């Protein structure tokens, strides 16, 4: 049996009669990096806000670390760290003072964790600089350091790479991976940047108009992203005939530019190329292709991504 860090059962949240969350059943396993995908207004932040106790559900239940009920949930929230809709900082305080205020708030003994966190996110050299003078990337990193105070078991990060420069994105990705791998922290990340999410997530949840459409592992996603062989030959019609007659497959599509997408025979590319060669065809392009997360997501919500 899997151990779940978060489970929601029929979780519903209405805003003036509109369902921001519609009977959401989400499950996040311990140790997962859960990529949470959805358009603006799909319900990602509402779900995170509901789980962290900032918003109250109008229906359904939340189970955190196996605990449910108002009192138990409040207690369980001591084991989570979060950064919701951007970093929440005291602008007039330095990075160390921001962490100190949060350390006191959480009742974490010993000041040494402040320096440790600053080092962990690369802000140890910021000295007397106030948070209001930080770049967006520095603010994001400080927000993450605050979320990491108290060594949480579950991190909820809403758009953590927003505003980061390319180096910052890579650093954040590596940091999240390390936290997950070395400390076993379960992480939920909502992000607009699906290509980035694709590099870290072990599980995915797709939410659309308040409904959780699908949850799947990275392996399941890979299998579901329909792969195909892209073939470009000098005579597309003859190539199609070869595929049909010699390989006995009709599972292909001839595109407008003459290229062919072959959805079967993925395991035997040698056999396909040999058949085409033996028919005297000149092969200009022959490569395995697949959908990425973005294409899959777009297809799943039935339209343009707009994430």
């Amino acid at each position, binding site marked *: 049996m899997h151990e779940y860090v978060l489970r929601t059962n029929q979780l519903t949240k209405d805003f003036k009669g509109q369902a921001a969350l519609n009977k959401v059943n989400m499950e996040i396993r311990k140790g997962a990096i859960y990529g949470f995908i959805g358009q603006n207004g799909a319900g990602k932040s509402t779900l995170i*806000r509901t789980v*962290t*106790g*900032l*918003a*109250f559900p109008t229906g359904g239940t939340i189970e955190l670390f196996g605990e449910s009920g108002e009192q138990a949930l*409040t*207690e*369980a*929230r*001591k*084991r*989570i760290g*979060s950064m*919701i*809709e*951007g*970093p*929440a*900082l*005291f*602008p*007039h*305080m330095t990075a160390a*003072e921001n962490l*100190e*205020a*949060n350390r*006191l*708030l*959480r*009742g974490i003994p010993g000041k040494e964790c402040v320096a440790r966190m600053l080092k962990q996110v690369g802000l140890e050299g910021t000295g007397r600089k106030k948070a209001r003078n930080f770049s967006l990337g520095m603010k994001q990193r400080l927000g993450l350091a*605050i979320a990491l105070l108290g060594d949480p078991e579950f991190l909820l990060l809403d758009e953590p790479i927003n505003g980061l420069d390319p180096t910052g994105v890579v650093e954040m990705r590596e940091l999240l991976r390390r936290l997950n791998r070395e400390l076993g922290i379960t992480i939920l990340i909502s992000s607009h940047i699906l290509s980035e999410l694709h590099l870290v997530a072990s599980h995915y949840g797709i939410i659309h108009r308040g409904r959780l459409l699908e949850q799947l592992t990275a392996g399941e996603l890979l299998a579901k992203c329909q792969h195909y062989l892209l073939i470009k030959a000098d005579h597309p019609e003859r190539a199609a005939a070869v595929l049909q007659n010699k390989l006995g497959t009709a599972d292909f599509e001839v595109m407008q530019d003459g290229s062919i997408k072959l959805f079967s025979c993925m395991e035997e590319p040698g056999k396909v190329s040999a058949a085409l060669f033996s028919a005297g065809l000149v092969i200009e392009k022959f490569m395995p292709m697949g959908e990425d997360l973005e294409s899959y997501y777009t297809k799943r919500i039935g339209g343009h991504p707009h994430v």
Partner: protein
Amino acid sequence: MYNLIRAELFKLRKNGAFWTLLSTLFLLSLAYPLLNYFDHKSNGEPQMTGAEFFITFTASNAHVIKFGVAILAGFFICTEYSSGVMKTIASSGNTRWRLFTAKLIVFAAGAMAASLVFPVVGTAEVTLLSGFGHLPEGSAASLIPRALGLTLLYSAAFAAMGAMFAVLLTDSDKTVSVLLVFFMLMDTLWIALGTKIAIVADLHDYSIFKLSVEIGKPVIDSGDWPALVLVPLLTMALSAVLGILAFRRKEIK
């Protein structure tokens, strides 16, 4: 709860608005007696003594208390909503009532500190300039500690009201404006309505708005004491309970 109060004290210590308020009051409480001193000197009028200044300004200190509460409510409590910090606070695994109570305690402490600046600094300066003089006949030697104690009590009561408004309004500008208007106009409104409706006049007589100006009275009848102490305590308790209820139901954006 102890850690929450420590966190709030840390934040108050780092709050620029709090120190600006204290500094401004400090400067004003230095400037006003000084101007008054030179004015009297140039006109050949007798100088005000420390005792006279204390009695006069303890009564009108209620305005300073209200002003301080309004400013602090806006810039100590509400800025945590606008900066998003309240999200971290509310999701920290502490119950809402504990969070509100810790905030209220420290906010009240800040308001109390501000309320003492005028009577203490001003009186000390006037005493240095013209001597302390004598307390009015009939007033006990305990007048000063009593008046200062009541100043603190009424500051806490106004602070509890301020915290409740801050939780309801959440926006700094709105909170400062609404509180200033509410504190300044409430008295006038109550008096005006009291001339027409008897019960309103009675309510006003037993409100912190009316009683707060009686803090500096040289003599307080023993029969007046229960109201003078109980009214701010009840106001504080009621405002705190309403504030907690509001904060418990409040969704943090």
